[in-house]
């Protein structure tokens, strides 16, 4: 394969251009997961604990939204944030903030849907005990989230994987501007089309390594936590 040696060299020498792209990608994806957690977790908890007409339809829609095409989300956010769009005055288009918003929209349904399933399973188990202890709605939700925290990490990981790997949304709303909104995935797409395979391969290696490292870390935290918390 051409460029393997120089790709490795780029990674091992922590090339500043490459590291800039890596940090931006990580920052955007982690911020998106953070935002999606703040929005998605309460939605998941609400759907897990409450019964209302149309709840099943909501769950079906939420599950379906897990498969949102990133380019469509990118397009929708682009239309919202473009100069003539409803939020155009915010001046966010082609900034990292726009990329965070687009990825958060992609990730929120994943976190909400997986959290809903996890919390509902635990709720079935805890419902009678918490009712017998006269625990109110806020206490119930916080107890469920706390006790399911190690399982919920898996939901966050799924969201992070989605955010870190997608290219369609960030390339539309970020614009792939060198040194400003260029992420690992958009850079790989660009460098490959330009024929600069060493950088593309180097970024590919880093991207895979980060995803593996984050998953390994989360798995370790979960195992250790479960050993102590049961």
């Amino acid at each position, binding site marked *: 394969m051409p460029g393997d040696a120089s790709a490795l060299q780029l990674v091992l020498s922590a090339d500043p251009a490459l590291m800039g792209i890596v940090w931006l990608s990580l920052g955007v994806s982690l911020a998106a997961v953070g935002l999606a957690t703040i929005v998605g977790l309460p939605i998941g908890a609400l759907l897990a604990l409450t019964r209302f007409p149309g709840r099943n339809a909501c769950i079906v829609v939420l599950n379906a939204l897990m498969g949102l095409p990133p380019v469509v989300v990118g397009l929708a956010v682009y239309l919202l944030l473009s100069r003539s769009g409803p939020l155009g005055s915010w001046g966010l288009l082609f900034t990292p903030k726009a990329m965070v918003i687009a990825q958060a929209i992609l990730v929120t349904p994943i976190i909400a849907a997986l959290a809903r399933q996890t919390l509902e399973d635990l709720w079935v188990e805890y419902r009678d005990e918490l009712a*017998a202890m006269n625990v109110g709605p806020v206490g119930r939700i916080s*107890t469920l989230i706390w006790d*399911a925290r190690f399982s919920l990490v898996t939901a966050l990981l799924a969201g992070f994987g989605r955010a870190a790997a997608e290219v369609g949304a960030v390339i539309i709303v970020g614009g792939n501007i060198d040194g400003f909104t260029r992420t690992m995935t958009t850079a790989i797409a660009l460098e490959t089309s330009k024929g600069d395979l060493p950088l593309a391969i180097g970024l590919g290696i880093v991207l895979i390594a980060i995803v593996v490292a984050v998953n390994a870390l989360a798995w370790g935290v979960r195992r250790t936590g479960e050993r102590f918390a049961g």
Partner: protein
Amino acid sequence: MAVRAPSSDLPIALENASVSVGALTILDRISLAFSPGTPTVLIGPNGSGKTTLIRLAMGLIEPTSGRITFGGRERVPPLRRAIVFQRPAMLRRSAAANIAYAMAAAGIDRARRPGRIEELLALVGLTGFGERPARRLSGGEQQRLALARALARDPEVLFLDEPTASLDPAATKAVEDVVQAVVARGIKVVMSTHDLGEARRLAGDIVLMHRGRVIESTTAAEFFSTPKTQEARRFVAGELLV
């Protein structure tokens, strides 16, 4: 957090209380009172309505018809009542944290908790188990921890739904010993069992149930010496009530 109710929940009185789900009647016009004093044991075959009666008296469900009062009041939150379910769910925390959770939910002062946790663990024979994950304990140990957790709420009435149903004789004895210690502290115990031997060992009063109805409700001494109904005579004789 909950504030202690000043008045007593006892007697818990059911007046013509029925519980139905769709066309199925699970409890059929029950009139009964649980008063302070010796343990009341609900006996009867599976499906006779014991668990539903306990859930109703605990206040976890409402009667479909008729009424239930707690110390003369209706719809009283379970601040002074506690329950151990047949298969208690352990919170994903340590044994001590399970007890601490129940105390926090009951509004018990944080400063009082550590000492009381040790006391309760000792009462149920789980001294030294405090830091163990609750879900890793054996079935018998979990049952005793559930008892400690229920007692952590400082209840005046404790409901036990078949507390020894899936336990071996040694674990059963350990649970029964705790129940007797609880009774000695003046807590009203209402428990269900389909084990006649257990009923003889623990009961002050007996309520025999069959197909959602109370067949006989009397003192244990009278029930076992002179059962009045045919069902009671058959049950005491060890015949199968189906």
